[in-house]
């Protein structure tokens, strides 16, 4: 945790001058970093800055064109992922690599079950159980080794993944965006485990867009931009705004662009007494035209489920919904869209986009009648014109809308395609569920700008986000949801300042007082 004797111990991992090109295009220009045993290094940068490539080289997935790596003062050049694992590099990926249909112990030993003896090729169940119990204890997970992984929460699965890594006695553990799908409590538990790993002398590399988390966990931070080092240093010498400035190459004074309009009088969406056993409990609220209503709540609070019910994706037992004064009875996605609702889901890959299809095909999917020509057939030219003009509106990185497949775009640009396809319908109510998840700082700014444009045109926005700063920065009002019930409502207070009482919102959203306060966030907001 401390830098008491930095000079005495040689670094656990030392990397210098890494270069790498793909198809003749250089993506890494001499990356270097070093990691001491028992320390955590934060690796941050926008999407495309070279973080993944740097880590894939460390993990043996790619081989560098130039540069050198030293692990425990010995040259380290893994030819493949297997070699990297044997050398003591463990990688906890953002998308966990567990088999939900197998038990915890089976997952831990999937790559080599111990046998009873060399002669009898039967699995030694007792040995596996002992070893699994030991590993689970190391990550503070009180679960039976025979529990199927499918029954575990996202946070528990991640701890199982860490236990799996510990089974191989790693020297370095890489965490790639470990907190995106965790509840606040699970995040705290993860950070406690990371502290224990550090105390055992394991080096941690921590990759994340959540800079507050990086500042909490890491001793050093290295910032990448466009495949080169953009800065970094000891945590004490850095601040979140300083890191953001290094990431984007300029200083961002106002993360949240100012809005010039006030909410109008008329109500765009009214939800009354919406109930579904176990999911939502008599939820009533309304959003006015030109208003951003923030919805704060932990994972599992029912915030996504609420959005899905309004959009007609999930059923509800009781309640009324009306859009612009007209009741929306038994909504289905089709009737909800006809009423003027748009819905950006939290999972753009599996719910928002046809990944193997072009930008144009994705964008016009929600508004096919608008691009139909003679005989109701889809007019190819109209499709392209429509998609190009929307690509400009959302500042998409490409205007080759028919040739670019969505899966080739970065996360931020993919999100712009999802937003664009809904903007084409000019929605009266836009439900945005985690619109900035997994996208970089620059793309976040674009999303904020688009939200502002939307409300300026008179749309109502229901904004669901795990990032409380985002809600505070964008919302006119914030509601908190906890276990399917609305637990609080907050109006933006006029004048300068953050406009909301952050602690009060957190308390209402969690139902308990918040133990940990995150540092450096006020400066950004």
């Amino acid at each position, binding site marked *: 945790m401390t830098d008491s004797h930095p000079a005495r111990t040689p670094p656990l991992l030392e990397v210098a001058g890494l270069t790498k090109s*793909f*198809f*003749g*295009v250089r*993506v890494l220009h001499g990356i270097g970093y070093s990691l001491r045993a028992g320390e955590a290094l934060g690796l941050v940068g926008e*999407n*495309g800055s070279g*973080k*993944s*490539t740097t880590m*894939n080289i460390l993990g043996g997935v*790619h081989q560098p064109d130039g540069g050198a790596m030293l692990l425990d003062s010995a040259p380290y050049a893994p030819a493949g992922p297997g070699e990297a694992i044997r050398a003591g590099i463990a990688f906890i990926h953002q998308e966990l690599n567990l088999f939900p249909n197998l038990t915890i112990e089976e997952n831990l030993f999937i790559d080599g079950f111990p046998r009873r003896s060399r002669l009898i090729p039967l699995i030694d169940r007792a040995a596996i159980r002992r070893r699994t119990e030991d590993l689970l204890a190391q990550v503070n997970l009180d679960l039976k080794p025979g529990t199927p992984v499918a029954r575990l929460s996202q946070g528990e699965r991640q701890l199982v993944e860490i236990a799996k890594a510990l089974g191989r006695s790693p020297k370095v553990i890489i965490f790639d965006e470990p907190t995106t799908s965790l509840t606040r409590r699970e995040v705290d538990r993860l950070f406690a485990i990371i502290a224990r790993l550090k105390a055992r002398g394991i080096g941690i590399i921590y990759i994340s867009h959540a800079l507050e988390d990086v500042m909490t966990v890491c001793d050093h931070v290295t910032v990448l931009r466009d495949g080169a080092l953009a800065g970094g240093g000891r945590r004490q010498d850095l601040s979140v705004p300083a890191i953001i400035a290094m990431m984007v190459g300029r200083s961002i004074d106002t993360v949240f662009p100012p809005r010039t309009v006030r909410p109008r009088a008329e109500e765009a969406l009214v939800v009354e007494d919406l109930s579904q056993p176990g999911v939502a409990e008599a939820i009533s609220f309304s959003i006015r035209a030109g208003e951003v209503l923030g919805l704060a709540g932990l994972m599992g609070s029912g915030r996504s489920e609420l959005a899905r019910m309004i*959009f007609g*994706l999930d059923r509800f037992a009781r309640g009324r919904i009306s859009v612009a004064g007209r009741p929306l009875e038994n909504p289905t*996605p*089709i009737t909800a*869209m006809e009423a003027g609702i748009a*819905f950006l*889901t939290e999972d753009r890959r*599996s*719910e*928002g*986009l*046809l*990944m*193997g*299809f072009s930008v144009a*095909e994705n964008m*016009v*999917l*929600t508004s*096919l*009648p608008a691009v*139909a020509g003679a005989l*109701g*057939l*889809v007019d*190819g030219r109209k499709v392209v014109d429509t998609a190009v003009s929307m690509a400009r509106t959302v500042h998409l990185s*490409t205007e080759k809308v028919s040739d*670019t*497949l969505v*899966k*080739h*775009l*970065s*996360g931020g640009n993919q999100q712009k395609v999802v937003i664009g*396809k809904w903007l084409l319908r000019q929605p009266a109510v836009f439900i945005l569920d985690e619109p900035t998840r997994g996208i970089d700082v620059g793309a976040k700014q674009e999303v904020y700008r688009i939200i502002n444009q939307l409300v300026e045109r008179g749309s109502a926005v229901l904004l669901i986000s795990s990032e409380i700063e985002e809600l505070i920065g964008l919302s006119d009002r914030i509601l908190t949801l906890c276990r399917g019930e609305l637990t609080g409502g907050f109006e933006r207070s006029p004048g300068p300042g953050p406009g909301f009482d952050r602690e009060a919102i957190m308390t209402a959203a969690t139902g308990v007082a918040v133990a940990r306060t995150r540092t450096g966030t006020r400066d950004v907001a």
Partner: protein
Amino acid sequence: MTAVPPVDVERARARPTGHLRLARLVLSEYFTLVLCALYLAAVYPFVPEMLTAEVAANVLSDMMPLLVVAIGQTFVLVIAGIDLSVTAIISMAAVVGASVMTGTGGYLAGSPLAVPGAILAMLLVGLAIGAINGLSVTRLNMPSFIVTLATRMFFAGAAIWYTTFHSASSSIADLPAGFTAIAEGDVLGVPVTVLIAVAVAVAAHLTLSRSRLGRHIYAVGANPKAARISGVPVARTILITFMISGACAAITSVMYVSRMQTGSPIVGENILLDVIGAVVIGGTSLFGGKGKVLWTVFGVLFLVLLDTSMKLLGASLFAIFIIKGGVILLAAMIDTLRHRLMATR
């Protein structure tokens, strides 16, 4: 974050290496047509008759019924389903159609409406069985493989049973001349069956590539969740594709019955492998979301060329099965390879 930004690939594409050129050929629309040409060139020295007008006409007339039912199958494969019941639909439509128009005890025997009535009945049989398939898949959430396997067995049996009520023999004969003329007739030298198949192909092509329904079909095949959230009527789209497949099978039945001049409950019993094989050889993906009518035309052409040449070579039925099986396996492998190439593109 993708390790390879698309820009790099763009640049690499400008100067194709050998590997990339091969990849491009495999991914090309006309890959199967190229294969047809290569195959013709390879077998020509052994069976020069292949290029005579007579054989070409034979190939064409063999192709048409298979093409129509394969086009229907294409729709179902694009939504990531499969329709194994098409041969049973052909049989059921055959005996129902024949029972309506047969001169010996047909429901409309001797009436001027016998032929149109029979054709209408056949289409209704196809649409009805397609609707049963589609509703089972959408309402009961059953996999199309097992649904259509079941309806295939059910209606194959039902067709034979139905025949026993209308004929003393194993099929229903004595069909009106107006119906058998479909197989023999021509308009300005173009066989009627070719006209029907071309009409079906053009309509199917426009539907898949240009209509809203077509956009919906591709979206459902690629990602049903995203399609639903984008306002695509997923269940209705799936139902319609199975009904299209059923209707296409019924049209194929019309062609077969008029050619054989009898309504047999086992007509087309053996063509299931050919139908699915032809669509897959054409390049329509079994994974859903990808497929074109033109590809299916090429796939059917390839399979019929293979069949015809083997028969001309005097190969035994078994040998033909072995070779066809091998070719279809190869096509499925190429489908997988295409998938992998797409992923790296």
